[in-house]
């Protein structure tokens, strides 16, 4: 077996990163390494949003984005489903009505399972209804048309949008704003964040959504994973700085190494 030129560095980097992640996760799990995440305001606001919806007696809407469970944007969907676990637990705790809308058929059974298990874990399996998780349409704008209809007919009081969003982001955030819902949104699709910042009460920027699962659950394995990713970021930052200084000195060795 021979590695394809152009991918050699990437493959070795993947091996090193994986070892780093596994090591830090192991140490965190064993209690030899303590991880404490910084405050993420957007995630803390979720409880406030659900609490407000409960007081008003109106539903909470959650969208895990419109991406599938495969491809580059899949991690955003998984991050959204982790936040959905927390949202379900809180909804069960406060007896708030939860509506989860889905665009991708593959995400539907996953979301349904997450919500069902969430209610079960909270000791309130009866709260789970078949219409809690709703598949609307696999067509992007038909999906958003359906979501807007739900917003206006059911007057949702809290709108939580975590995951991968594209052109529908502003439509959804604007629709939520029109019905007066408290809105928490987050995506790693950087081109859509400006809309969330403009139209929502709280916004999770980029990687903050990946930290969401660990932050909300305080699960040691997930916390270790976030800490290890921070170390990888430090390594990348150092590489960028050294690479830029070397380029300035007329040496492109590090730059070339990255595409070996």
């Amino acid at each position, binding site marked *: 077996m021979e590695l394809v030129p152009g991918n050699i560095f990437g493959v070795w980097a993947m091996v090193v990163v994986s070892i780093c992640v596994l090591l830090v996760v192991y140490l965190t799990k064993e209690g030899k390494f303590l991880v404490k*995440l910084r405050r993420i305001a957007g995630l803390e606001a979720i409880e406030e949003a659900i609490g407000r919806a409960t007081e008003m007696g109106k539903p909470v809407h959650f969208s895990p984005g419109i991406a599938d469970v495969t491809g580059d944007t899949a991690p955003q969907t998984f991050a959204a489903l982790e936040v959905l676990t927390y949202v379900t637990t809180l909804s069960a705790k406060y007896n708030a009505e939860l509506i989860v809308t889905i665009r991708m058929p593959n995400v539907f059974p996953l979301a349904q399972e997450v919500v069902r298990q969430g209610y079960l874990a909270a000791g309130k399996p009866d709260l789970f209804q078949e219409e809690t998780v709703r598949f609307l349409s696999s067509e992007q704008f038909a999906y958003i048309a359906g979501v807007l209809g739900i917003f206006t007919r059911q007057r949702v009081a809290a709108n939580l949008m975590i995951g991968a969003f594209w052109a529908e982001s502003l439509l959804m955030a604007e629709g939520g704003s029109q019905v007066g819902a408290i809105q928490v949104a987050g995506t790693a699709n950087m081109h859509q964040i400006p809309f969330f910042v403009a139209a929502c009460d709280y916004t999770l920027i980029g990687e903050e959504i990946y930290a969401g699962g660990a932050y909300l659950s305080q699960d040691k394995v997930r916390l270790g994973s976030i800490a290890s990713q921070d170390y990888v970021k430090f390594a990348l930052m150092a590489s960028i700085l050294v690479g830029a200084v070397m380029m300035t000195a007329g040496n492109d060795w590090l730059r070339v190494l990255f595409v070996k």
Partner: protein
Amino acid sequence: MNISTSIWTWVMAACILAIFSFIYKENPIYRFAEHVFVGSTAGHAIGMAVGNIHRFGWVPLTTKNEWHFIIPAILGLMLYARFIKGYAWVSRWPIAYLVGNGVGLSLFTSLNSQAILQARATMMDLIVHDKAGKFLLNRTFDNFLLVFGVLIVLTYFIFSIPQNGPMKKVSQAGRWLMMLTFGVSFGNVVAGRISLLLGQISILLTRWLGVI
């Protein structure tokens, strides 16, 4: 004025206006258009799915003896086990297979495209000269902004280290830098959305009403 006589152009115009009526408020006309839109796309998706199963599964299996297509067919059928009481757990296997494949496939591509190649592209000359050796102030400023901008913004995304003192200052600077970028991006996209609106109005005025 040359109003269209095509029934489909009238249907198209009615649908566009019905959806636009949401700008005023949620109303029965919008609701009708919404349900037609959602329902028709769901129906279309089912048609496409059945067609794909026939084209990429059934035909190779029955006419070309490509028996390995039986595996995705079985996995697909296992998904329906969730409707059989006592056997719902069977439906978790194809989901696990799908998620496992998804994560596995995106592991290398995500790291390569979103970290390694981005880092490489940021390794730039911090002092730029042209071929004649003349110092280029603008390019130098651009490169400085790009390299240190990336480093500052990345600091914002460090979660496991307490953000106190200088770290907090750098992180806040990263946040401001992002907000500045978001503002520019917002302006660009709003301009793009207006052009989409103009496109729809243009369709109504040309293809439907024929006034331009």
